[in-house]
């Protein structure tokens, strides 16, 4: 690979990641606007979150705890960017490897871990409680989510994301082939995105916004970028697993046009997935943590198990092999 090639490649990666963060901020702004409309008011302009991030990054910041605390926002942001780089957005994938579906599971946990480290380092009891809740919540939604991934891997007979996308394009989208698993995955997604009724770790009335309690100024600005990235990360994960990653045209035959069309379709699909989460967010109160845990290990797990059985029966007994 020549140096020019590497330069082009890395510019593209940077552009993609930058766009992803921007889309995340835009989505958060749209969510605020939509929630405001549900709540019968005007709401902020949809570019409000860009202003908020700009302001936070331009603020003076005098919060001193220890170096882990300083390091944590960077860690979280870097983790989310790395995970985004592994995730095909509109069919384009920056980093790849075989079995990256499993690798991705680990990478997704990195930013949350960084977040937890920093909050723990702040020594604020509210942050401590929030981190405990966040980790418990992770434990709860990963159970159905792993079952869903297992179903996908068995059905499509692959552990690589790009192969998964290809097979979905040639055969059928995951949501058509495995609708039950898709339902379980969407419920798990609500917890992964920490939207109500699962916004337990950041409950302002209970623990004063939890892990965020000590972060201000530039730290908070970086964490906002992190959460914008994770919005895109999590919606894209669902789209990649069940909606074919938005790939409708094969780049091999249509070239650049295919990239553009796929990107737009992907954008539309993650928007739909995000909007479902936002609507649910607006009309539900939050669970207590142990209720969320019970909930996740009950209904979504059962649904995901049924989905797994369906995938197994279809591929082994009925011989439906994509």
């Amino acid at each position: 690979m020549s140096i020019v090639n590497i330069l082009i490649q890395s510019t593209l990666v940077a552009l993609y990641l930058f766009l992803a963060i921007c889309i995340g901020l835009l989505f958060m702004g749209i969510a605020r606007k939509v929630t405001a409309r549900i709540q019968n008011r005007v709401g902020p302009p949809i570019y409000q979150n860009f202003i908020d991030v700009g302001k936070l990054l331009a603020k003076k910041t005098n919060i001193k705890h220890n170096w882990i605390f300083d390091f944590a926002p960077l860690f979280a942001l870097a983790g989310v960017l790395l995970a985004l780089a592994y995730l095909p957005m509109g069919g384009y994938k920056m980093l790849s490897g075989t079995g990256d579906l499993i690798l991705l599971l680990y990478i997704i946990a990195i930013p949350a871990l960084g977040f937890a480290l920093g909050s723990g380092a702040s020594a604020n009891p509210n942050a401590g409680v929030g981190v405990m809740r966040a980790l418990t919540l992770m434990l709860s939604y990963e159970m159905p989510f792993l079952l869903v991934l297992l179903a996908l891997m068995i059905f499509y007979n692959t552990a690589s994301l790009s192969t998964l996308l290809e097979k979905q394009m040639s055969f059928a989208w995951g949501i058509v082939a495995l609708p039950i698993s898709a339902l379980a995955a969407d419920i798990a997604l609500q917890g992964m995105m920490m939207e109500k009724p699962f916004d337990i770790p950041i409950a302002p009335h209970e623990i004063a916004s939890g892990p965020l309690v000590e972060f201000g100024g530039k730290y908070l600005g970086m964490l906002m970028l992190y959460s914008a990235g994770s919005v895109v990360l999590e919606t894209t994960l669902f789209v990649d697993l069940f909606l074919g990653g938005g790939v409708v045209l094969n780049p091999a035959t249509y070239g650049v046009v295919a990239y553009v069309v796929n990107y737009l379709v992907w954008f539309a699909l993650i928007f739909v997935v995000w909007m479902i989460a936002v609507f649910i967010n607006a009309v539900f109160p939050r669970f207590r943590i142990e209720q969320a845990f019970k909930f996740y290990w009950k209904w979504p797990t059962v649904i995901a198990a049924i989905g797994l059985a369906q995938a197994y029966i279809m591929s082994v007994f009925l011989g439906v092999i994509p």
Partner: protein
Amino acid sequence: MTDNPNPLPSIIPEKDWKKIQRMLSKRSLWMIHFCTGCGAMEMPPTMTSRYDMERFGIIPMATPRQADLLLVTGYVAVKTLKRIVRVYEQMQDPKYVISFGSCPINGGLYWDSYNTIKRLDKYIPVDLYIAGCMPRPEAIMDAFLKLMKDIDEGRADGWLRYRKYYDKYRANQMRVFKRWDE
């Protein structure tokens, strides 16, 4: 990360950097959720569907670390003043204070009460006053717009004054508190 120097001094002139900062901070004032007095009663209508201050990018925040704007809603009892000062000192620069209602201006109805401090700006710098008991949500909105204008023109400089005259403010505060630790 202790100060906010110009990130690209070669591209952005120092003057424009200040301007950008002001422009950003005026459009995204995060208010701390602290009901210091009875004026907090008119905050819910201001926040909610009828008046909706989120239109201007003003949202209540749960912790002082994240906030830019402190609303001192009404009379300040001595015990509350200590908490107000603590909250104010935890907020990150630049930060703004709006004093709300007649009582923090001169004591208002409680001019002869032994437990309320009479003038708030003896203890912390105040950027804007809203008069009235209690100010209507329209007045609060008006105050927000005025504060935005002040920030734009660089007149909302309470946080700079607090830095500059810190000793005097602290000396005044200590005349009402008997102890600060705890």
